């Protein structure tokens, strides 16, 4: 057995956490599974059973976070001082998009009863059977992308493949024209890339909100067969305020591609590191892809953590959490909990019906989960049929600061075949 690497399990900006959240959170899970973090001033809940309990008990664990309503100078991790006034001037309805008031994405950060109305305004679109009509378009986009790169024998997978696929799919569903694709992706990047700093993010957020406003207004009078028309109907029906409608449109655009591109990139990385599993998938892609996607979700959940606030005192994992305490459910630990999964650190696509928490659970279970499943399964099926073996070129680095954007996402991933 390897000597455990020494690191401070309370240091949420540790390079160990960025590179390998499973080792980092796994150490917490096995030593102090419900642990108070003195820097974040929040509980980290790490066992599968306890994280699942939080997801299914939304009346005990509120999704309305405290942080977006704090003054900018009170945030942790800290916001650069030159951005304090700008951030304080931003409507709290939007702040989650800045990558600072995490969890404040609309619908995600709302409790019942308002949550139910908002969810119902959009739920129909995302029902598994209703999404099937998009499978053909997604499969075609996958094939076009493969054709575009095949002869080069190498590509940067995250941006040239995964991002293009997931962004195209959500752009079309929202009802936004291809001509706006480059602009939208460019603004999205400025908004989500923490290297750009908060000042740039605030400007990008205003641009995106304005862009969405014009499109939502157009659909108030002339609705079409797209998601923005459902958002417009929700605003008309009083479910969303004006700023909420803009915010939810931005959420759908960002959540609709940042997460799925991570699933595909991290999933392919897992296959590259486990060539026996790639061979197995290749032996019968039509049969094995669906469960392989579930294993990718379990093994590398895109979102590492989700946040809640305790509504009342509650005991969990033997600790008493007090009313108003901040609580983080750690998905990347729950999905690797040996109490829930045999050989949890083994990437094994033969697992059946594994109860991973990659999409969380309960009333906030990811709205786009059925779409992510279609995109990932069409991708892995097509890749498995076409490519015998992928290899990595260079090392993988991950986006920094897990507690800013919550995602475990490679900066880029260069592959060859």
């Amino acid at each position, binding site marked *: 057995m390897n000597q455990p690497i020494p690191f401070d399990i309370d240091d949420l900006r540790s390079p160990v956490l960025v590179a390998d959240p499973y080792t980092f959170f796994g150490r917490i899970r096995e030593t102090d599974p419900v642990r108070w973090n003195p820097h974040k001033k929040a509980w980290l809940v790490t066992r599968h059973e306890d994280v699942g309990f939080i*997801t299914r008990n939304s009346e005990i664990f509120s999704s309305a976070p405290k942080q977006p309503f704090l003054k900018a100078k009170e945030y942790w991790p800290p916001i650069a001082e030159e951005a304090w006034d700008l951030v304080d001037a931003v409507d709290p309805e939007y702040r989650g998009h800045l990558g600072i008031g995490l969890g404040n994405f609309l619908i995600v950060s709302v409790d019942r009863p308002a949550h*139910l109305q908002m*969810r*119902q305004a959009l*739920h129909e679109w*995302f029902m*598994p059977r209703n999404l099937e009509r998009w499978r053909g378009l997604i499969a075609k986009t996958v094939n076009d992308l493969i054709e575009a790169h095949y002869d080069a024998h190498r590509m940067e997978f995250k941006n040239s493949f995964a991002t293009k696929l997931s962004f195209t799919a959500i752009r079309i569903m929202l009802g936004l024209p291809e001509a706006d694709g480059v602009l939208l992706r460019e603004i999205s990047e400025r908004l989500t890339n923490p290297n750009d700093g908060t000042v740039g993010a605030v400007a990008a957020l205003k641009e995106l909100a304005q862009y969405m406003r014009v499109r939502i207004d157009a659909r108030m009078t002339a609705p079409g067969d797209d998601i923005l028309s459902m958002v417009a109907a929700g605003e008309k029906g009083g479910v969303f305020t004006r700023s909420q409608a803009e915010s939810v449109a931005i959420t759908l655009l960002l959540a609709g591609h940042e997460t799925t591109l991570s699933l595909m990139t991290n999933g392919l990385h897992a296959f590259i590191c486990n060539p026996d599993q790639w061979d197995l998938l290749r032996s019968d892609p039509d049969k094995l892809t669906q469960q392989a996607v579930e294993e990718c979700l379990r093994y590398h959940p895109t979102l590492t953590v989700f946040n809640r606030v305790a509504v009342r005192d509650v005991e969990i994992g033997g600790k008493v959490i007090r009313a108003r305490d901040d609580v983080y459910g750690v998905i990347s630990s729950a999905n690797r909990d040996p109490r829930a999964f045999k050989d949890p650190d083994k990437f094994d696509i033969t697992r059946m019906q594994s*109860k991973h928490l990659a999409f969380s659970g309960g*009333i906030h*279970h990811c709205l786009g989960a059925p779409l992510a499943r279609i995109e990932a399964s069409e991708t892995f099926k097509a890749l498995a049929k076409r490519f015998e073996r992928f290899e990595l070129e260079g090392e993988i680095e991950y986006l920094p600061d897990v507690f800013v954007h919550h995602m475990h996402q490679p900066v880029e991933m260069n592959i060859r075949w």
Partner: protein
Amino acid sequence: MSARTLVVSVNLNLCIGNAMCREAARSTFVADESGLSVGVNPPPDTREDVFAAARACPVCAILVRDAESGEEIYE
């Protein structure tokens, strides 16, 4: 012609407690003690509401069958 009697079931290996079924067919789908959904048979809600609940499940955990033949029904 009398409507066929339905039997509903929830696959608890798939259910994640999204609870949209409990909104669509409030008497047919109820929460168990762990926050997952279980089915009540015979379903007290209308046929339309029962199928709306099945369609609303994001993880396709709900199965509706014909009580006599056991045949799976999708509407």
